[in-house]
């Protein structure tokens, strides 16, 4: 829907992909564990392998005293709510992760 304004109101996004160069924002969400009150946003390189994201997650979510890093190896993944069996060697982009995508896992 167009904004009703006194002129053609078409201001651009201030979070657009172009502002992040070779990186893109990615939201990582541990679904079902509200100890992390919300998903976390990261500026990940587009070409970063998915496996590197998993590696970072193992460190990041260790803030939860009950977290077992090994459990991530069997996590169920989804990107933008579509289930995904990630190719750990392939890049985020190749795994369908775009700018401001929601990468979620359940363990």
């Amino acid at each position, binding site marked *: 829907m167009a904004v009703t304004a006194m002129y053609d109101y078409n201001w651009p996004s*201030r979070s657009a992909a172009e502002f992040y160069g070779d990186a893109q924002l990615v939201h990582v969400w541990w679904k079902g564990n509200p100890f992390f*009150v919300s998903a976390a946003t990261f500026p990940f390189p587009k070409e970063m392998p998915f496996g590197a994201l998993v590696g970072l997650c193992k460190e990041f979510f260790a803030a939860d005293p009950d977290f077992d890093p090994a459990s991530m190896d069997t996590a169920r993944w989804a990107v933008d709510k579509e289930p995904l069996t990630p190719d750990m060697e392939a890049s985020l982009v190749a795994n369908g992760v775009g700018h401001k995508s929601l990468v979620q896992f359940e363990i």
Partner: protein
Amino acid sequence: MTVSPEKPARKLSMKQRYSALTHDLDWAPTYVQEEEIFPFTTFEGIKVHDWSKWEDPFRLTVEAYNKYQAEKDRRLYAVLDGFAQSQGQVGLTDARYMNAMKIFLQGIPVHEYNAHRNFSYLARYANGPGARFAALCQSMDELRHAQTEIHTLSHYNKYFDGMHHWHHWTDRVWYLSVPKSFFEDAMTAGPFEWLIAIGFSFEYLLTNLLFVPFMSGASFNGDLPTMTFGFSAQSDESRHMTLGLEAIKFMCEQDEDNVPIVQDWLDKWFWRGYRLIALVAGMMDYMHPKRVMSWKEAFELYFEEQMLNGLFKDLEYYGIKPPRHVQWAIDEKEILSHQVYWVLYQFSHAAAFSTTIPNAEDQAWLEANYPETWPVFKEVAWDKAQRVMDAGGRYFNPGLPQLCTVCQIPMGFTEPGNPLVQCQRQSVYEGERYDFCSDGCQWIFDREPTKYRQAWLPVHQIFQGNCGGPGGLPAVAEWYKLGPNDGAEYLGSNDQKNWLAWHGQTPKEA
């Protein structure tokens, strides 16, 4: 001229006199077109046929306004002076109470001030003299509120951290973008939308929740100055509520075609305002050491009973329905404050207030007031946070949160009926994804995507290097100008140390 020996009684009634002193000052221009003088009141599509139908039941004149406002301020400043002279801060329930007032100072006066500026816009550009004068009085009031709030908290600033740089923080720090984006959203709208946004939805529907139980709570916690300014501000607020109510009725009565536009604005601004005052829910239930009533009870009393059962029955007459997404708000009343405080707790290392785990007394109160939701929340959140604490740590979230594009609160609100799973909504507009915490925020974005995609989202800006460059959190904190004592954990904080010293205690005794 003949002079009668006995003066007759005043010949003009209060209403006629008010009309002579306000409405009658106006005239229809003939040297220029009316729309040249009032250029902003047509583009929104609101049709007004007769501005003289705008009613102001208060019928204040400048003389009466100055007289009563001067008296209110005399009383208020006497309380402030007395409190400062007697070192009243020593008599608060606890220093951690001050954290609520830190958020208040950082997040409220600047927006009272914004309201002042935009009511000046209405006072200038509304076509009708009645509406303009009511707006001018409100502009003055809002300036008053900004200043009395600053002056009230000025004394506390001398003795507590987390207040001294509020004006710098308010334009920059992440959680303060929540109120900032709310008011800037309203200020960038046209004059009629502003009236529905702030005049009606915020002032009439929602500010009671901010001011009444919260200020009563201040009194309960020994904060007499805050109670006094709060109630004093509220006495102006009743005029503002009246303006808001008049605004919605006026628009609906002027033309049937206005009703759907007003309904859309009401739907938008109810949700926008409700999300904003979620912060108050967290402050009331978790940051006040002693509580008058829970958020849930306040919501039932001041929103469900007064507004849904009272006001909206009245507005049915015009074809106005209760706000879209109101049921979502009702469903959230059991859980809202837990989620908000949990956000504040885990990100207070990057904030100008401190937080701490609710103590045994707090927990008993939470259990009694939220018997359904507190035990669930306690288990997944606070028990774990306590274990981290017991092991010598302090749980802070190691990252930056995903923010809702519209309300800008970290996306910690959960799906209705499922307190363990956060609500995730996404829209794609012109190829770009946007995230939302709720159906309400998503609906608002989808109506006006080219407005909300401009949002200066703090997390996104940090990653663009616009908040102190690429140096990570330390660089951001420096750019925020946060001092070492302004945030993080309350226990062991400078505030707590001072508090204990004032009371002749050491941390161990506490």
